[in-house]
Structures are given as C-alpha cells and as structure tokens.
C-alpha cells in the first residue's frame, strides 16, 4: 500500500504544479495590474509604487514572476502580500481553523442525518417516509445556497423585530464579548448555527440520495439474500452485511466534498461574513493580489488530493476485495 500512496502523491504533485502555474497565469493576466487603483489616487508617490513593482517583480514576464513565487512558496512560507508586505501563512492558518470548525460540524451532522435518512428510505422503499425524504432531498438539491442563507438571515431578523429575541446572530464568528473557555465555545457554536444549517441542507440532500441508492442495491444483492436465508436476524443483515458495503460510494463523495469544503464554503462564508478560507480567497481576488490567491489554491488543492487519497485507502478497509496496485 505504501508504494501505492507514494505513487499517488507523486502524480498529485505534478497536478499541483500544473494547477499552480495555470492559476498564477490567470490571476496575473486576468485581474490586471494590482497597483492600478493606486495610480489613480491623488498625489500618489509613484516612485514608491515603482519600488513595490520592482520588489515584487511585477514588471517581469509571467514565467519569471511564477518562478519567484515558487521560490517564495517553498523557502518563505508562501511569502508576503503584494502591497502590505505581510506574511501570508499566519492569516491562512487563522482562516483555515475557522473553516475547519464550520465544515467539520456541518459535515458530521450532515453525514449522521443523511445516512439515517438514506438507510431508512431504502428499507422502507416507496413508503410515506421515503416519498417525503425524496421530495425534501430534491428541494434541498434545488435550493441555491446563497438564497437559503439570505432567507435564514431574513427569518431570524424578522423574529427579532417581532419578538425582540435574537435567536441566532446573522453574521460573524463571535459576539463582541465572547468570553473565554466554554463561554467562547458556546458563543462560537451559536454563531455557526445558521451557516452550519445552510451547509447541512445541501449535503444531507445529496448524501441521503447516494446512501439510499447504494443501500437499495446492496439489500437486493445475492449475498444479503443468502444471509437472510441462513436465518440471520434482519438487524444483523442490515447493519453488518448491507450497511457496511453500502457506505463505499458515500465515502468517496464525502471525502471529495470535505476536501473541497476545506478550501472554504465560499458562498456561505461570504453571506455570513465568516472569516474563513472562502472569504479569504474572495478578498484576495478583489484586491487582485496573486500571492494569497496562490497560497489558498495550494492549500485547497492539497486538501482535495489528500482526502481523495484517504477515500481510496478507506475502500480497502470497507471492502477487503480492493487491492492497491
């Protein structure tokens, strides 16, 4: 297996390098000159701007700039921001921690609910519960994330305006005075309720459909019929023989989704103004600063690759027939 992992990591590093170059070119060429707005400011110190352009090699061609970026990324922890010259990594760690809190809670809850719904729907195929779950799943899949987030905000504000009770905050990660220790944790959880709900809806809708389909396929298979014929209790047949095998497609989906979400739930974080990876990326794009964008890309791409690999390895544990070659 080690050989397999090493081989996959080698392939992945090639993908990372290619992706980093393409994105660097798109950002450098597509967003225009990041110093441009400053040339419009009255009485701007143009020599100062030229010094920055020189220090950051903005006057070089895109290949040379990319090479300098690679040097900084490898030897100087992704280097510094273009204009304010601040180290990129501390900010990235900060926003990554915030995104992790959001995504881990949302995904764990989503998996829990989705698996339960999917399994029960499959076991009670064409029942009222199954039809209801199916309807809500399609609704969840069809609902745009930004719209749901806005509606939740509006609903919470309307409740506040009518009752004077603010059940959930509509923005930000914590209160003005969040306290410390458990008080801080609870305050953070309170602020994450709406964003977690938004992320959960889409994930539950998608995961529960996969789980249902996969479970239906397994419970109608020969080995499950054999288990039943041998007189095993239904609960054992379901949980031990069917459920475990039915998890395999979901593992792939969850792993890929989780890796992507660690790059930031861009829409959710933007609508709720959460200081996470997604908002960090949007802000960096807005100021046309290629360096934080590139750092974000590398972290996100690495996460996706790592979780993809984890999914592949997990197959082996769930299905002993899988061999790593």
């Amino acid at each position, binding site marked *: 297996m080690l050989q397999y992992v090493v081989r996959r990591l080698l392939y992945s590093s090639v993908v990372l390098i290619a992706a980093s170059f393409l994105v660097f070119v798109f950002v450098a060429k597509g*967003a*225009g*000159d*990041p*110093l*441009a*707005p*400053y*040339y*419009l*400011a*009255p*009485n*701007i*110190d143009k020599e*100062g*701007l030229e010094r*920055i352009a020189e220090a950051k090699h903005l006057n070089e061609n895109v290949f040379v700039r990319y090479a300098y970026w690679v040097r900084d990324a490898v030897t100087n922890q992704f280097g510094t921001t273009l*204009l*304010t010259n*601040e180290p990129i990594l501390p*900010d990235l760690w900060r*926003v990554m921690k915030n995104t992790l809190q959001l995504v881990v*809670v949302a995904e*764990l*809850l989503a998996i*829990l609910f989705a698996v339960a719904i999917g399994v029960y729907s499959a076991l009670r195929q064409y029942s009222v519960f199954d039809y209801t779950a199916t309807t809500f799943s399609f609704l969840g899949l069809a609902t745009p994330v930004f719209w749901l987030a806005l509606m939740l*905000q*509006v609903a*919470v*504000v309307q409740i*506040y*305006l009518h009752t004077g009770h*603010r*059940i*959930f*905050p*509509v*923005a*930000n*990660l*914590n209160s*003005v*005075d*969040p306290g410390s220790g458990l008080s801080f944790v*609870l*305050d953070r*959880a*309170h602020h*994450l*309720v709406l964003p*977690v709900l938004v992320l959960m809806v889409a994930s539950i809708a998608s995961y529960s459909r996969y789980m249902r389909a996969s479970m239906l396929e397994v419970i109608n298979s020969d080995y499950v019929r054999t288990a039943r014929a041998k007189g095993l209790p239904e609960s054992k047949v379901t949980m*031990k023989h069917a459920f475990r095998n039915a998890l395999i497609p979901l593992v792939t989906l969850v792993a890929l989704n989780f890796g992507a979400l660690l790059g930031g739930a861009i829409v959710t974080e*933007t*609508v*709720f*103004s959460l*200081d996470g990876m997604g*908002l960090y990326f949007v802000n960096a794009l807005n100021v*046309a600063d290629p360096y934080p964008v590139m750092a974000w890309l590398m972290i996100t791409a690495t996460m996706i690759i790592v979780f993809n690999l984890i999914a592949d390895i997990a197959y082996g544990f769930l299905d002993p027939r899988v061999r790593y070659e």
Partner: protein
Amino acid sequence: MRKRSILLLVGALAIAASLVVGPAATAGTSGASAGTVVFIHDQEPPNLQGPWVGNNLYATSLVLNNIWYGGQIRNDKGDFVLRNFAVKPRVVKQRPLTVQFQYSNNAVWSDGRPVVCQDLRATWQVFINPQNNVVSRTGWEDIQSFTCQGKKGTIVFKTLYADWESLVSGGPYAAHIIAGKNMNEMFLNSVPISSGPWRFSSWQKGVQLTVVKNPRFKVAPPMKLDRVVFRYILDTNARFQALKSGEGQVMEPQPQLQIADFLNDRNFVVDRKIGFAWEHIDIQFGPKGHPALKQPYVRQALITGMNRAQVAATLYKDIAPGLPALQSHMFKPFESTYKPNWQKWRFNQQRVIDILRGKGCTGGPSRPSAGNNDIYSCPGVGKLSFRFVTTTGNQLRALTFEIIQRQLKSVGIELVPRFGTGGTVFGTVLPSGDWDLFMFTWVGSPATPITIKDLYGCGGDQNYMNYCNRKFSNILQKVSVTLSASERAKLLNDAELRYMVNDIPSIPMYARPVFVIRSAKVKGPVVNPTTEGSPWNVNIWTTA
C-alpha cells in the same frame, strides 16, 4: 455496532445541545453593553500603518483619526474646525512660506508625555524617508526646515504650498515611540499610544477591532462612551440585517437600495449628505480616441444629449431624492464656493440634431425618436459611434450607461459598451488613452481643488484625457500656489466657466451621496463627507 450507534447518537446530541444552549449562554453578550457602540463596517484595515501603499483606506482612517489626533479637523461641512489641540497655525511670512504653530498644554500622549513639536518633526521625517512606503509625500517634501522649541514649531517651505494647513494640522506620530523603528513594520497589528479621544485596545482579525476611551485626553470633552467596536461584515445584505437585528448600532453604507428600508423605520435615523466623490465622463482628446471627439460641436452634442438631472434623479430616487446633477468639477453643491458653471448645457435633444445637421452630419434622425437606429456620420470624422468604458459589477454605473445610451441613440449617437474589471480598466485601459468615453469616480476631498491641475492641466499626472488648454492650465498652476482659499475658489470658478465649460473635456454627472444609519438609541453620529468619517465627533456620542 449497537454500541457505536449509541456513541454516535450521544455525540450528535451533544453537538446539538451545544448549539441550543448557545443562544441562552450568550444572549447577554451578543449585543452592545453599556457605553459601547458597535460600528458595522464593510472593510477591515489590512493593518494600522495609515497612509501606506496598500492601506490608504477609509477603513483605516476611521480607526486612526482619533488615535493620531490633529490640531484641526474637517467637520461635517468639510470646513476646518479648531480642536484646541494646537493653537491655530498661522503664516508668518509668505516668501519663503513660513508657518508657526504651538501645541496646547493639554495635548498629551496616553502614556502621560506631552505632545511636542518634535512629534510633528519626526512625522515629517517619516514621510520624507524614501525607505518608507508612504502613499504620498506631497507637501512634506516641500519643507525646507523645521525648528522646534518645546511645544512651539516653525516650518519653512521651499515653495508656496497651498495646502500647508492640512500638514500642520494633521495628527503627529509620537516621536518617543517611533524613534529608531522600521516604520514599514511598526503599526501592523496595534498602536501602543494615542493622543486622541480613544486608544487602541484589541483586534480580532477578520471579526472586530476595539478602541476604548483614552482617559488622558483633555484637549476637548472626553468620550462619553467606554468603547467603540468596529465589526467587519463584508457582505452587504448581512450588514443591513445585522444592523436591523441589533448586532450593531452605527453603519456608513455605500449608496445602496437597502437604505430605503431604514428611512421610515422609527428605530433608526438616517443622515445623508452629498459627498466629495464625483461621478463623471471623461472624453479622450488623444490620438487613440475617436477623431470626432476633437470637434467641439460633437462634444457639445454629447453633453446636450444627456439628461444628467434625470440620471441623478433616477439612480437615487429611493434613497436620496432630489440629488442634483453636478454643475462643477471644482466644488460640490454643499460647498459655499460651488457655482453651477455647467448649467449652461441643458438637455435638449432637438438641439443636438440641429448642431449635428448644421455641421453637415448625415445619416441620423431628423427628430428625436426612442426607436431610432440611424447614427450620424460627420464630415472628416466618420460615424458618431463611441467606445464607452466603465467598470463591471457596478449597478449604478450600468444603469447610468443604459439611460444615456438610450438618450443619445434617439438623437443618432451610438455608445458601444466596453466594460471591464476595475484592475483592467484603471490599470491598463485608462492610462493607455485607447478609449473614447470613460465613466468613473474621482474621490475628492476639500483640498482637491488645490491640486486639480493634476487632473485637468496640460500633462497633468492624472489627465488621462490628454486634454490641454494652456490658458486654463496656467490658472490651475497658479491655484496650486495660492494660499488664500477664497482667492483659489474665485480663480477656479472663473477659469472653469471661461475655458473648461466651453472645451467640455469631461462631463460632470453627480456627486455621490454619503450616508450614516444609526440606531435611534445612539445619539451623535452624523455624516462627515471627508475622510474623517462619522467618528469625527465621537466624544459627543452617547447610547441609551
């Protein structure tokens, strides 16, 4: 498996319970406590350095203006107001320009040391040090000598620098704090001292920045509040929702339609004024511009064919009804020096057609028609079809374009949209001169007229139109070295009316309104159209 399921269930319940308990546990702290005002803002400063490249932002000024306190401030009308910090600085000699000032005995730093002349001298050194990435050295580099005696100082300028008052009245750095420090890295995350009504307390990046009352501030009535918390909410809708739900009490929104919701809400007070930023359409005079635009009659046709008053009224009918079309590039309608110099050009579509036909243009309509598709061609300059450049993603600009495009098309002039991102149009297109009409905003200040030669003078640094009228340019040059504000205003108004209004190098559209929304429980915040922002009078703010 059963045990695992039970564990999973317990875990889920624990998480769910924490989410439910959260509201009860934090309800008391999520709003503002007594003596606290939460100021919701749309942008977080990248650091606290101030006027440094990459950080010359309003968001930073909002925090720093009351930390690095100045002798004077621009009030809500844009006029200088004495703040008792320094005795009013005065010119003691015109040639060479020599200025004297003296700090008040009550002017002290938050560590108890007095504010002295050496502090402003050290500030001058910061701004002229080529190693420091300051955004502008204008004025500072014109200082010949700076002599200090305790709280008194004398500055001699190399040249007549008309905006000397802004320099001398600006908030100085604390010399004893910055001595020997690398200013490019000095105030990245905090400011350890203050001479103003508040001092820096804490900064949770990505969330909020807190300033608290400076107990040593004595030159004006001290802050009544204990603290002001700047909450950074980047999403427009979330900002308005947060204000409505009481998560903040004061906000300075961009001109957005959501403001209308607050106008009739008795829980909020909306203050609005016209600001210093003005929207305009520049016309290209250079070789890459359309040859027709070099003809005065074509420019006259353009301005006569645009209903500028209708544009302003349509864009702002819900949130700032009655916003007038701007009739001056020099001053804004609320300034006492404002003269409606451009009023001469009134909207008259038939007149446009008469002008064009009178010059031999053909192919266009004989009378204005909303459904017209015929475009005029004029002798020697071709079809009147112009590339119109502006930024994408700006609803107000898109609407402005649609209105004037329709108005001009109905008289036989075509506008072809060439929209792009801010980085591209300002970074590449604008300086290249390869455009015909360009709509954007100049962010002005009360001092802008002093340096307006950079915008409209021959070879001006930001004269991207390549417009040049020598006589006009000479007057703008003279303005930049005229010390008297009233004399400057007279020169500018006369020159604008005499030359610029006839040349029409740029069409003024409207000055953008500025807003402050505050909870009715908070008293004090009002619009200040300068970069001082609404906290300019924070010492009188109170909260119920």
